[in-house]
């Protein structure tokens, strides 16, 4: 049964922020970000009824948030092993180690899932996603470890739900948008503000937006991959999942 999951991200607009000046927080001390809320919504969508009934509608009660700084510190500890090789491509060991550290935390603190968020940005999506999954696998938490890797950034998933023809041809967004917010034409943040008619949106606006999104209709390769991972995790934990 899923009751608790641990998440880590890049900044306060994705997985969230701690209100208590700590590196790790949950419940009232945790202000979940838009991606954490979207993930929670996606999980609830696929959880069997008997399990989702046990999850309150208050995500922070079930989510534990870990700052990347904590993962960085943990990642540095293993000096004996060098992981770059065929499985973890050069340039991606950081994500591999972060995933290992996150999974270790989950296992030690009775968290049934672990989700590591990172935008694809200008990386290769598959390589980044595989490095994170390899980290979960190394920590023997592969099925319950979620590599949350939107392409090119999380805004692409949000744009899908607010653009002129919502949820239509969203896969194109992955190719159209730039992984670089400094690219004026194709910058995901600017494009989201445009679609939404709200160029100065803030963290709370994004969280409110997630409330309105229909996760069943977001059809993008990077989101579908996350959905598949969520389903596998739920089947591992609950023995079944809702389609």
């Amino acid at each position, binding site marked *: 049964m899923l009751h608790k999951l641990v998440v880590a991200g890049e900044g306060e607009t994705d997985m969230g922020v701690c209100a208590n000046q700590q590196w790790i927080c949950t419940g009232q001390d945790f202000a979940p970000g838009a991606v954490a809320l979207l993930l929670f919504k996606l999980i609830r969508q696929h959880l069997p009824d008997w399990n989702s009934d046990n999850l309150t509608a208050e995500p922070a009660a079930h989510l534990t948030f870990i700052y990347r700084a904590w*993962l960085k510190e943990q990642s540095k500890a*293993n*000096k004996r092993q*060098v*992981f770059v090789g065929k499985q973890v491509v*050069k340039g991606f*060991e950081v994500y591999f*180690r972060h995933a290992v550290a996150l999974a270790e935390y989950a296992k030690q603190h009775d968290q049934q899932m672990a989700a590591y968020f990172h935008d694809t940005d200008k990386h290769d999506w598959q390589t980044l996603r595989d490095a994170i999954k390899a980290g979960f696998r190394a920590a023997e938490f592969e099925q319950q470890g979620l590599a949350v890797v939107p392409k090119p950034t999380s805004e692409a998933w949000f744009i899908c739900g607010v653009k002129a023809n919502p949820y239509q041809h969203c896969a194109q967004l992955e190719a159209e948008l730039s992984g670089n917010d400094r690219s004026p034409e194709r910058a995901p943040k600017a494009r989201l503000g445009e679609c939404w008619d709200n160029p100065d949106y803030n963290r709370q606006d994004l969280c409110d937006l997630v409330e309105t999104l229909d996760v069943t209709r977001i059809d993008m390769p990077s989101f579908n991959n996350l959905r598949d991972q969520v389903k596998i995790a739920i089947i591992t934990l609950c023995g079944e999942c809702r389609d």
Partner: protein
Amino acid sequence: MITRFYIDNFKSLVNFDLELSKFTCLIGLNGAGKSTVLQALDFASAIMSGEVEKWLEKRNWNIKSLNSNLTNRNTIKIIIEMEIVSKHYRWHAIFNRAKQQCTWERLGCMNDNSALFGVDDGSYRLYQSMPHQNPILFQYTGSLLSQIKPDLLSDEIQEFKKRLIALRSLDLLSPHLLRQKSRKSDKGDIGMGGEQLSAFIHQLKSDQHNELVRQLRTYYPQVIDIKTTALRSGWIQLEVIEEYPSIRYGVQEIRVEAKHINDGMLRLLAILAQQYSPLETLLFDEIENGINPEAIEKVVDALVASPKQIIVTTHSPMLLNYMTDEVAKESVMLIYKRADGATHATRFFDVPSAAHKLESLPPGSAMLDVYLDQVAQEAERHHAA
């Protein structure tokens, strides 16, 4: 301690500047010029001792092949800055290849900008003992300091000279030479390729010998002693005594002659033995060669803690991983070739992408997780800016 080394027109080193710490670790791709840096430092030391010809002979090099193909200059310019008991000194020399001598030299104290020694235009000055210009009426090679009687040199000059001469690059260290029997020598070091190892260990005092055995045992617990024997012919033979449990005898001692000792143990023995040499600055090329990963941590600890100044080159991420972040930030230098072919150095973890990796990875993993050529380009852009 040497704090800065500058050389111009030595193989790929053109206008090359390197800051040195008590422990410095040079990393970089093959052919970037890491070994050349060690050779150049060794060359500077040979200039100071006046043994340029011998130095070339040992390496089987020709003086003509010393200069860089990247410039047309005939002379090699060297600057060495050294810290001696909280005072800083700078020696600046112009070495003329055709004459095999320094035709221009300056040695001074940087703290008060005082001059100690100078060579210019066929004459020299010792500012404390002989402040007027003295014509050079004799032949010399290398630095003129190598030819002047020590009692004419001030303490400061003597100390600088002594310390620079007490530098040795063991870039030719090889198991083949380490295995050789050697004759007694008064040189007091193991030789450039390690060929004097047996004679060097033979002359150690008993407490030094015991400490060496103790240290070797921490890597190879089966070792109980190192024996050196003076053979009738004058050669010194090196053996390692190992102990193994035996069903028949309880404990069985095995003597292993140098020619059968494994490469890694011999190299380690050579590295450890150096602590008793009178040398002050030691340079090792690809220090990790032949040493099994289990021993690397102790090797790093020993090098970092060594009272001598140590400069090593390495390709081993594991070696770097066992440095603390503070040591790595200070001591790891990236050696790379610029677009024009000249070798350049930069403090590796000062480059933002490497520094960023160091936030999540131990130093060696950070080195392996970046492309060194890209880090070099980044460093170049940084310099240009």
